[in-house]
């Protein structure tokens, strides 16, 4: 075997070892940041490009993207909320024990003896809420700026799946504390899953085809909410859905880059004008690479066929914006967690129903519809809405108003009008149903199938649909119809949710305030 360093003066091995030791920190840093400290534009670019996480961003971003009004940071806030739930959720998993009864005690222990346990649970809860809100708002932003249009259709579809996954994550987390709130909210959820029975019963085919029963069985693993349901929800909540969400999120981010960054108006460059003098300069050095790469990467990388003058390096411009939004989201969650504790009611008691039993707030609009018809409210209308949303980018093939808020024929005025129509319709239908009741109250013998198809929920949906069709004809534009319909549904969702949260009491009766609820 040869001695290392053979042929060198004796004692130099020790010296080289000392040199290597001295150089180790620098070399470690170099090996981690392969490009060296990013001080030049080029180094910044390779820094971003050469990092697994950063390179989901393009190296340079358009100035339009960096305007606050373009996105209001909603996508980043939603992702930030997810990151916070992920971190706090992992911490909670160290103490949480998914078994009925024991689960409740473990949450109590998290509250009372785990260091900052309640604070962490609060953050988990609030960041989950923030995530749901941010995802909804992000969707509204993308819709109103018509950013779903080609080439971004598929990313809109991915976004819809992310929305559903987010709601699923939130909903599955609801059962885990095993308190009264959890138990009865999931009871509502399970009954919604079972609601196709309303139709199969009416058709008299439940014995041969019991879709509702099957769905409920799949969800709960049993007829009743028990240990089977809890382990199912736990597995979905901590493993399956997070993995699904991470995978979808990866695709979502990656597609943002591949689809050419965020949507912007065709005349964005002109509208932006010249750079402010203080802004970090654009291309201070001659590019070492030409855009030959563009020939390999087919399609719309940001710089293809366009001058690079209106792009800025992602580092620092985009990264500071993103980090700022993320920290702001964190701050909001922390502040809320300091003030309001995550709820924990009495131990779940199947013998003692909560009245009213309410689903998580973002499902209370649906629960309001469910109170009219379980099938339509829980499955029929939501399916139609989600399908409609999925199809929007494939139906709206116009180009007017892309990248602009409320862009498209009609514009902000149409949205305002639609908001008025949407609010009037939902308030009108609700007021009618609350004041006069519905068919069953007038003719108790009415067959269920009729009520399933003619109830305040379906009537409201029909009004919105007709209004939307009228808009398509009036403006001769699909986008106009979509703007109207989306706005209407948004109004309907908000109003129904508020009614479900605040104005519904025991037995789902209407009350002006919870103070008027009768005592059970």
């Amino acid at each position, binding site marked *: 075997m040869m001695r290392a360093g053979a042929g060198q003066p004796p004692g130099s091995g020790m010296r080289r070892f000392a040199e290597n030791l001295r150089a180790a920190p620098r070399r470690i840093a170099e090996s981690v940041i392969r490009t060296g400290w990013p001080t030049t534009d080029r180094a910044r670019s390779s820094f971003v490009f050469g990092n697994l996480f950063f390179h989901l961003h393009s190296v340079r971003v358009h100035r339009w993207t960096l305007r606050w009004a373009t996105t209001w940071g909603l996508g980043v806030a939603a992702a930030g909320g997810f990151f916070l739930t992920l971190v706090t959720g992992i911490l909670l998993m160290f103490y949480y024990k998914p078994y009925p009864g024991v689960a409740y005690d473990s949450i109590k222990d998290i509250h*009372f003896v785990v260091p900052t346990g309640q604070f962490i649970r609060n953050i988990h809860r609030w960041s989950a809420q923030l995530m749901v809100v941010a995802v909804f708002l992000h969707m509204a932003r993308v819709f109103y700026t018509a950013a779903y249009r080609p080439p971004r259709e598929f990313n809109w579809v991915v976004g819809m799946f992310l929305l559903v996954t987010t709601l699923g994550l939130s909903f599955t987390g609801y059962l885990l504390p095993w308190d009264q709130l959890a138990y009865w909210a999931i009871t509502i959820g399970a009954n919604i899953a079972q609601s196709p029975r309303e139709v199969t019963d009416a058709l008299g085919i439940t014995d041969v085809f019991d879709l509702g029963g099957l769905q409920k069985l799949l969800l709960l693993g049993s007829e009743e909410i028990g240990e089977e349901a809890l382990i199912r929800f736990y597995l979905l909540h901590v493993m399956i859905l997070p993995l699904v969400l991470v995978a979808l999120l990866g695709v979502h981010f990656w597609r943002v880059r591949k689809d050419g960054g965020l949507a912007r108006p065709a005349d964005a460059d002109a509208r932006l004008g010249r750079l402010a003098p203080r*802004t970090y300069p654009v291309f201070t050095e001659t590019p070492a690479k030409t855009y030959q790469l563009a020939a390999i990467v087919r399609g719309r990388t940001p710089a293809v066929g366009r001058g690079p003058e209106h792009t800025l390096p992602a580092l620092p411009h985009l990264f500071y*914006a993103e980090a*700022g939004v993320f920290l*702001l989201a*964190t701050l909001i969650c*922390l502040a809320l967690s*300091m003030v309001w504790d995550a709820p924990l009611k009495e131990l779940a008691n199947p013998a003692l129903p909560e009245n009213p039993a309410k689903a998580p707030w973002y499902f209370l609009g649906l629960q309001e519809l469910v109170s009219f018809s379980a099938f339509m409210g829980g499955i029929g209308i939501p399916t139609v809405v989600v399908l409609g949303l999925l199809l929007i980018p494939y139906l709206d093939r116009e180009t007017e108003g892309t990248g602009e808020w409320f862009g498209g024929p009609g514009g902000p005025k149409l949205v305002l009008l639609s908001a008025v129509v949407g609010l009037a319709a939902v308030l009108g239908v609700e007021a009618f149903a609350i004041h006069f009741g519905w068919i069953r109250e007038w003719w108790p013998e009415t067959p269920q199938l009729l009520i399933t198809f003619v109830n305040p929920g379906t009537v409201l949906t029909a009004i919105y649909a007709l209004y939307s069709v009228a808009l398509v004809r009036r403006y001769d534009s699909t986008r106009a119809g979509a703007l109207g319909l989306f706005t209407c549904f948004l109004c309907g969702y908000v109003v129904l949710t508020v009614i479900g949260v605040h104005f519904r009491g025991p037995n789902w009766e209407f009350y002006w305030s919870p103070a008027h609820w009768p*005592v059970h």
Partner: protein
Amino acid sequence: MDVRWNKLLLLGASLATLALLVAAAVEENFAREWRVLQRRYRQRLPAEKARDFSVQLRQIFVPSLRATDRCTSCHVGMSPGEEPIEGDPVFGKHPRVAHEPAEYGCAVCHGGQGRATRKADAHGLVPHWPRPMLPRRYVYAGCGSCHTHLAVPNLDMLARGRALFERYDCLACHALDGRGGTFRPGSVAAASGPDLSGAGAAGFDPQWYEKHLAKSQAPDAGPWRVSFGPIPAEDRRTIEEFLSSRVGAPGLVESKALFHSLGCRGCHKIGGVGGDDGPDLTLEGEKDPARLDFSNVPGERTLPNWLAEHFRAPAAVVPGSQMPQLGLSEEQIDALVFYLLSLRRSDFPEAYWPKDRIRAQRFGEREFATDGATLYGTFCAACHGPRGEGMRYPGLPAFPAIGNPDFLGIASDRFVAATVEHGRPGRRMPAWGEKEGGLRPAEIRAVVAYARSFAGGAPGPVDRQPWRWVRGDVKAGAELYASTCALCHGPRGEGAEGPALANPVLLANATDAYLVETIRRGRRGTSMPGFGSPSPAHRVLSDQEIESIVAFIRTWEGKR
């Protein structure tokens, strides 16, 4: 758009986030209530003890009782191995009780939330905790969690025993329920006897009297000579019975005995024994105050307050309640609240079952005394009155005065016992037989014997004639009934102001002699006149006519 604004945002949000995290860490590590209290406790310890004392979370963990009680994190003095600080409300000593708290935990007796480490949560005074701590004055109600069948003697016996205990000045030497136990000032020696508060649970020497007497008569008796004298055998028995009831739960035994003297079980079931008219009270003490209607209850929203107000005016607190206003004194109400709070019944492993619970649940022993007086007090007194005088509650039909000497004079034991056993269908009187109300034949006999004492204890008439001997003219009887009886008893015996005579159970149990005698003599104190004696209000019926009426009444038998 300018990167500087985003940098500022990042800086500001980061700093604020950091500040909140630091605040949370400080709160967690320094400001927690139990940490503050333990530091205060340490300051009050002597220096050498304070050195060894570490501020840390403390708990009593008893897996078999599902107790994880962190109460000792604040109440450090009650933590095993720590020194209590006398007289301090937080760090003080746990009073001596039958069970060592370190082996049983805290919440099992006191209620509250053992896992909690903040005062409000731990004491259960927060929303969504259904078991708040028992107030101090009712604290022994917590015994009911396990001692579901705590045996109690008769209330009067209890009072007599206590009176005798005091009259013979036992309190001079012995402590009992926190009283007595020191020789009075001016005495010769500080000779104090053992505390007898737990004598019923721990047991006592059956030779106590002989030994006491021997000591007091010994030549060197000293203070014994003046402090102990002979006690008659009957008083001794009463004192011993009284002592057997001293199980270390002062107040609970008395309140339970009171409950069993007011006839509450006539309508309410506890542990499967009692009537059906009122709600089952087995778990009354576990009612969640958050689920009670306090709209007509002044004062604090606690279960004791709700129960007390409910006793004062049942129908005002629970609209539509059938429970009559019992006219109880405030002391009685307080005692009943005490007892109801003790109806808790946690299901612990059988190894923890107390003896009386096993005797009751396995061998069917009663948790209350089974002499006639107690049984009557337990099941009958609420409706028939404490002395059988009957009751008239507003809104309810009058309850019969079974102590009426006219009734007892003609009702045979057999008839009364049969009425108790089978009840009176259609009336409020339920069947108390073993299969229905759960009274055993011997117990029914005891109740009947006790009822006799209302009429001076004279034995009931013995049926010399056969049950059915009347040979009356039914047709004549029908006419007489229509003209004389129907007004009060209804044309078809269905009852109106007077009781229903067509009642199958009445007809099955009443002998002809009973019916004839009732018509002839009437029932003093009621509207039923004696038709055998002259009166300005009605005509006198001959024996023949009375028998005809009875024969007619008999035709209803088996018809419905």
